[in-house]
């Protein structure tokens, strides 16, 4: 197991989509390799950061137009 092997499997590793032996080998390598430890941790963090609700906020004007359109069209359909 070398750094390249870890990088190649990093996505499957983060998804828990590896056989146990390969998973153990990656962890054993990353434990003593600072570069791999950084890449694994920061890739995991990257995913977490993009789930933050502060990114891509819904603009107030867009929200107001959405609700105005829905009220007009959906209420019409109900009545």
């Amino acid at each position: 197991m070398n750094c390249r092997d870890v990088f190649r499997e990093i996505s499957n590793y983060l998804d828990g989509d590896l056989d146990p032996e390969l998973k153990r080998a990656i962890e054993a390598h990353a434990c003593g390799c600072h570069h791999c430890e950084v890449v694994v941790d920061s890739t995991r963090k990257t995913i977490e950061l993009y789930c933050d609700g502060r990114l891509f906020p819904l603009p107030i004007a867009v929200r107001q137009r959405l609700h105005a359109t829905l009220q007009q069209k959906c209420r019409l359909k109900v009545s």
Partner: protein
Amino acid sequence: MTAAKAGHYEAFESLVNRYEHKIYRLGLNITGNPEDAEDVLQETFLKAFENLPKFREDSRFYTWIVRIAVNQALMKLRKRRTDRSVSLDDPIEEDGEVIPRDFADWKPNPEQLLGRTETRERLEKAIQDLPPSFRTVFMLRDVEGLSTEETAEMLGLTISAVKARLFRARLRLREELSKVFK
């Protein structure tokens, strides 16, 4: 849900309030265009209201509207690119392995830096700079929390194509974010 299915607008509106931000974010990230994202948002909820009586409650409501939103967004994306038709199952154009280049430690608590407008803009730009097929897979898998199988089925991709795009999207985003957080 029962009241919304019976056509009660107020009940439907509470579902809209719960999911509107996520659907806008998804539309914006697939189309890469704020006007298209607004259209996707409106069309998704209009279609949802229209088809709500057909919604089977044994599936998740959120997955159901995500599916509607993805279809709307892909239609927009393809319409905008008539000159260069976009197919999410195009072979990955980049050759060679994706190798991380930045190994600097990140600052502790990078989420605190998201309070800054400049940081948020850099993260938003990083994902917008990815090819549409990469960012669509990343959004569905990592942000919306769909499984690999659901993502593959929704986008008409194979499981291995989803995994390959997700891998590249994650590593490319990590590389860009390393510039922000180291």
